[in-house]
């Protein structure tokens, strides 16, 4: 049994509860024991680091310190924004002892820096590859998947030190292990406009359309994501895109849902019914 600490963050408990469901079910299927942190708090993504540096560091630092206290050495943070904030904070604290001291005083804890944060792809690479091929019950043969990384999963390169920030390949390797075909497409790291979703929706519709159209052009039947913001933009905004540019009907799936399906977990347990664009047409 592989024991991993689990930090769902707010998205996986709310707007992206399907991501949360699928992470848990996938973990079960892979034989991981996910231990959700007790008393976790918001990582402060976007709001905090736009306004106050100390707050931006203190919120993730408290999460990391809790994990350390609760005996966690590896912490899974499936949300791309959460993992980005946690990894970034880890780096800042380890490189600046003065700052670490200041933050520890603020959170009234003593974080030593022993927790390693993983996003979903990293966790799968480390604890499921390559033997996942043997655990696949329902091979996704013939399914053409466009792996979409968006901005945060592979950036900032010096902080994350994970995959090629301009031409990543790690999600493709996992998708291929499930028996599906990862299509070669150029817009996998383009921005979906997440930050502007509420304020300049027009721009988001335009960006989303480009991504969806390009994925389809290269033969994708579904788009795989590993970020709640990417998912909501590509899935929820598709109605607006359809209205302006014509129908796309491209289902957007979390990577965890694809893995779950391949492991033979029922669709309803993976939250597939919660999507705006139904995946049932392609995933049977």
């Amino acid at each position, binding site marked *: 049994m592989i024991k991993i600490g689990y930090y769902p963050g707010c998205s996986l408990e709310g707007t992206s509860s399907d991501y949360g469901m699928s992470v848990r079910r996938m973990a079960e299927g892979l034989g991981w024991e996910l231990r959700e942190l007790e008393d976790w708090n918001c990582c402060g993504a976007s709001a905090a680091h736009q306004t106050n540096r100390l707050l931006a560091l203190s919120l993730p630092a408290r999460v990391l310190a809790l994990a350390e206290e609760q005996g966690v050495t590896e912490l899974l943070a499936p949300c791309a924004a959460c993992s980005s904030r946690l990894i970034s904070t880890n780096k800042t604290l380890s490189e600046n002892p003065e700052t670490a001291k200041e933050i520890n005083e603020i959170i009234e804890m003593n974080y030593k820096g022993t927790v390693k944060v993983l996003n979903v792809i990293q966790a799968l690479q480390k604890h499921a590859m390559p033997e996942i091929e043997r655990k696949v019950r329902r091979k996704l043969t013939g399914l053409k998947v466009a792996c979409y990384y968006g901005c945060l999963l592979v950036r900032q*390169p010096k902080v994350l030190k994970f995959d*090629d920030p*301009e*031409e990543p390949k790690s999600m493709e390797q996992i998708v291929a292990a499930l028996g599906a075909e990862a299509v*070669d*497409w*150029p*817009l996998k790291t383009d921005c979906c406009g997440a930050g502007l979703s509420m304020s300049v929706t027009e721009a988001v519709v335009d960006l989303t359309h480009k991504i969806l159209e390009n994925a389809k*052009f290269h033969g994708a039947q579904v788009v795989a994501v590993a970020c709640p913001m990417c998912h909501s933009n590509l899935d929820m905004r598709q109605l607006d895109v359809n209205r302006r540019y014509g129908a796309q009907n491209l289902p957007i799936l979390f990577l965890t849902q694809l893995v779950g399906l391949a492991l033979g977990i029922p669709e309803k347990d993976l939250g597939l019914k919660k999507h705006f664009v139904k995946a049932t047409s392609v995933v049977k």
Partner: protein
Amino acid sequence: MSRIGVFVCHCGENIGRTVDCAKVAQAAAKFPGVVHAVDYKYMCSDPGQNLIKQAIREKKLTGVVVAACSPRMHEPTFRRAAAEAGLNPFLCEMANIREHVSWVHEDRAAATAKAIDHTRIMVEKARHDEPLFPVKVPVTKTALVIGGGIAGIQAALDIANGAQKVILVEKEPSIGGHMAQLSETFPTLDCSQCILTPRMVEVAAHPNIKLHTFSEIEESKGYIGNFEVKIRKKARSVDLKKCTGCGLCMEKCPVKNIKSEFECGLGARTAIYRPFPQAVPNKPVIDREHCLKFQKGTCGVCAKVCPVAAINYDDTDEIVTEKIGAIVLATGYRVMGTDLYGEYGYGKYPDVIDGLQFERLASASGPTDGNIVRPSDGKVPKKVVFLKCIGSRDNAHGITYCSKICCMYVAKHAMLYKHKVHDGQAYVFYMDIRAGGKNYDEFVRRAIEEDGAMYYRGRVSRIYEHGGKLIVKGVDTLSGLNVQIDADLVVLATAMQAQEGIEKLAQKLNVSYDEYNFFTEAHPKLRPVEANTAGIFLAGACQAPKDIPEAVAQAGGAAAKVLGLFSSDELEREPIIARVNENTCVACWYCYNVCPYGAIEKKEIKDKQGRTVRWVAHVNESVCAGCGLCNAICPSKSVELDGFDDGQSYAEIGALSE
């Protein structure tokens, strides 16, 4: 009784800014044995040197300490001055209060105290100095030039035309280097082959030049004037003496689909091949990795068709040893691989190529006979996008330097393209245009104004294929607008890098190289063609990115240095040499094993009857480099190093504890 003079230099403000030089001189005046101490703004200048000479004569000095810069910089200057005043030059010492003090400290009081300490140490050393006399060694008047590109060719010809012998070693089967691959050259657009190939022929025909192609440096030992270099002549499998270069073997070779290195993968070659038709020597070599005879034991067609029986499948590597007086390094450069830039799709899209590949497309002797066409479908591209600074000046990818030649060759490419495809449009994405050089900026202006190349100041974020076109997404930072071009061909101006594995050669020759593996010059301004190992010189892009005129100029400079060195029959070398006390030596051979120069010999001590009594270590003076390893390792303290003996070292340490 010692009579030491101390001379403290301000080095303008270099030392004076941080060190109170007058105070150092005052303190030095009180050191035991010091009879004279002064400070001066520029001790290395003529009036400064006169201060030293005058004091030696008037105060009858027995030793001199100059507290100034590193001895690497001016020790020869001050020793010469001392000698001119009649003092043995090895009684002149330097205390380094610039590199070791003023440049690395800020606190004036502490720096001054440290400068005083350094001076005290060297005064103690000078008090224990003994006069030494230079050792004369003969000079082998043969130069070794490593690398047969334009820089190596130029250096070899210049030395050979100066009536000295040259051995030219090239690792490829032919000399010519990258210049042989180029189409036309900036800023005059003369044909590269037309100006290069006659020089290649001249090299081959020159009575003073011995050429070793398909060869590499195996080992080097010795020192200036007296190197001994082992050269590995790789098995060519073709007897150069018998072969007439008729080419029948290449015609009949059944393995025809190997990507040609010379054509940068855009053309094919056979397994027995010469890199290009104008190769020197114009004789083939067998590529054993692809040859059926070597891989499967079959075929053997080349041997059957050769009319002069020149094919030798049993050929083996041969090591030749050459005695050399001076070495010129001209190993050139390589073009950076493009795997750092996955977003540009090099390797994935056949119509994304690098600058050297474009040269082959544009070259009359290239795989397309000079027609600029797309590698994918052979169609003439109507829109070509050139991307500059691919790798260069990119901190994120670890290459911070400017490759220097790309601004010029991209302008040339844009021009050549327009001259061949009149209805075509060239686009160039640049960071800055760096066209310093005679007629260089004018050349770039011509590309823009007369040949209509469209220059955008900005970077490209991504290139991908869409509907048979390469979509280039970039930004024009001058207008602030995004630019998208549906191109037919994309050319990446990738960075110029040092040759792969060049650090191994550097270690064999004991020359230093920088963090990018470019060889380091002895002084960036005043000794730009010398390596910091005596007797080794630098030419061309192995030192830093350079274009042809610069590489040729530096090669000429290196050749002049070699000819200067060869102008006398003997060289004076420093008498810093180890000596063995034969009475105490116990022949443990620690020194023999540790000496990097092979200078320790085993010597027999015989009695009157000629019987061997015992063995002792002996130093070969002409080979010893004075590194001191034997001195340090000797367990019975039987080895001393002249100029750095144990008494002096203890005196120096003792001075610090006062």
